[in-house]
């Protein structure tokens, strides 16, 4: 017998799971923006491509761990190529063309996915060991979603460690606040940026792999994720990692409770929240950058 309270708890955890997935994608996006003022539209494309590559690995080898490793690495490579050979080439021509090139890459990733895997949803099976459910709040909760939470918190802890305790992390934080000064101090900012760009792509790819058994893979998944992460960045504030974290959880919870209580309006809530934040705090909850 499921009580109202247990349903609320389950929804809250669902929201947390989606919020953490959002954060995995949004973190790379917001760092890239903070460092180079580039809105990487292709970022959600890396999420989608990662999901498809992971699903293809899983299907051919049956080894989930392998796809968990291969997909992020391949996305890091794709990201590095996009940054080095496309984005950097148009950098001197201004922001508009940087945006357009990432937009073009997003479009091509979308068409590639449709070309190889078809223009229809492809569900991904939950890997064997992680299927099943455990009792929680008087009901059964799927293990796999808890696994997503575990992975994403692991990544969060790793990220915190890198940003707070390592030289690279300090350089990245400094570059987000003032890339020109950091460059002048003798740190190779373009190389650092390449690293952040491809690292962000890897995180997006990882999010894609872990999300695919729950959200399935479909050609529109990149766009869905893109819109959600954009809303997250507006709410959290441009370039703010902490803001992205808080806003991701907010949007995750909002969507899960929205779908549960008012399904007809669920798609609309996040935009209303975004508009409200824009009116009240135009730079977002934790943003300093214009």
């Amino acid at each position, binding site marked *: 017998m499921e009580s109202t309270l247990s349903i609320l708890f389950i929804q809250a955890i669902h929201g947390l799971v989606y919020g953490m997935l959002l954060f995995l994608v949004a973190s790379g996006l917001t760092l890239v923006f903070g460092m180079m003022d580039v*809105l990487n539209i292709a970022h959600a494309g890396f999420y989608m491509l990662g999901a498809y590559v992971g699903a293809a690995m899983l299907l051919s080898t049956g080894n989930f761990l392998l796809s968990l490793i291969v997909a992020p690495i391949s996305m890091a490579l794709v990201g590095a190529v996009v940054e080095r050979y496309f984005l950097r080439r148009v950098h001197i021509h201004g922001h508009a063309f940087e*945006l357009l090139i990432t937009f073009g890459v997003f*479009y091509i990733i979308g068409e590639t996915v449709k070309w190889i895997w078809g223009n229809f949803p492809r569900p991904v099976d939950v890997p064997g060991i992680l299927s099943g459910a455990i009792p929680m709040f008087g009901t059964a909760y799927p293990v796999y979603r808890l696994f997503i939470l575990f992975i994403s918190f692991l990544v969060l802890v790793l990220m915190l460690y890198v940003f707070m305790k390592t030289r690279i992390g300090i350089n990245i934080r400094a570059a987000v606040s003032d890339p020109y000064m950091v460059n002048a101090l003798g740190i190779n900012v373009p190389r650092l940026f390449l690293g952040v760009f491809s690292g962000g792509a890897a995180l997006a790819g990882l999010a894609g792999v872990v999300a695919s058994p729950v959200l399935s893979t479909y050609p529109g998944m990149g766009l869905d994720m893109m819109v959600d992460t954009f809303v997250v960045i*507006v709410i959290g504030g441009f370039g703010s990692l902490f803001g992205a974290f808080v806003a991701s959880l907010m949007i995750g919870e909002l969507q899960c409770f929205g779908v549960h209580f008012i399904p007809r309006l669920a798609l609309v809530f996040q935009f209303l929240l975004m508009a409200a934040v824009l009116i009240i705090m135009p730079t977002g909850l934790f943003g300093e950058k214009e």
Partner: protein
Amino acid sequence: MRHPATRSIVAISIAIILLFLAPFFLNILQTRMLIEIAYFSLFAVSYNFLFGYAGLLSFGHAAFFGLGAYTTAILMKTIGGMPLLLAMASGGIVAALGGVIIGFFCVRRKGAYFALLTLAFNQFLWAMAWKWRALTGGDDGIGDIVPDQPIHLGIVKLDLYELEPMYYLVMVIVLVFLGAGWYLTKSPFGNSVMAIKGNDERAAFLGYNVTRSKLFMFTFSSFYAGIAGSLFALFQDFVATSSIDLSMSTQVIFMAFLGGTGSYLGPILGSAIFVYFTDWISGLTDRWEFILGVLFIILVLFFREGFIGLIPAKLRSIFATGEAT
């Protein structure tokens, strides 16, 4: 004939005369293609009011195209005896209203932030069109928009189930709006918007109200997109979420940049190339959208002026006295 303005007037007059004679020597398919090029030209030019003139890169311009298309379709469908031209004007006005509201949020922002917000608001309207089935028909869309009875416009009577009356109606509307738009870009207001694009701080110091000018340009551009959308609804006789989704926004970006955003005529050339190219290449391969994307990347990497940049400057100047940038 030596004065550049005279040459332009002659060249444009010849072009207009050719357009009006076109249905007599084109077959049905070619005429239909020309109609498509006409309303997409209007759409692409409206996009270029934002990017080419005000320097605002929008990824959500389909929002206004869709607002115009849906408004026209819904009015024609729900109100019996609705005058067609009024329904189409309403399409433009509703799009302009949407432009004021969305523009209010967006134009204070520059660059990436502006791009992101326009895309988000586009998705918001798309979600509305998708979910609000009672009004929009959801993914089934709205069909049967063309009025059953011939419409009377002063002395002429147009039966829009015939291709030629449709051609002339669309063409006249498009040409009138293109002319008015050209006039606007040459006006003091148009110049002030370009000054803002060049350097908005300097423009503000010179006493221009930067935000208000941008908002006006955004609204004006939305109005044009709405008119283009209502023409689309009329010609297709059908409106669905495809008129307001991201691929429509993508399409207008492709059209504008294909032709070139540096001049008034660029996007018109771009929509002509786009319509012909997609028609040709979709007959050759199923993967034409992929090829389109590759073409776009090549364009952004190497030919940022668009196709109009490949035309010799002398030839270009015959059609356009004074370029946008």
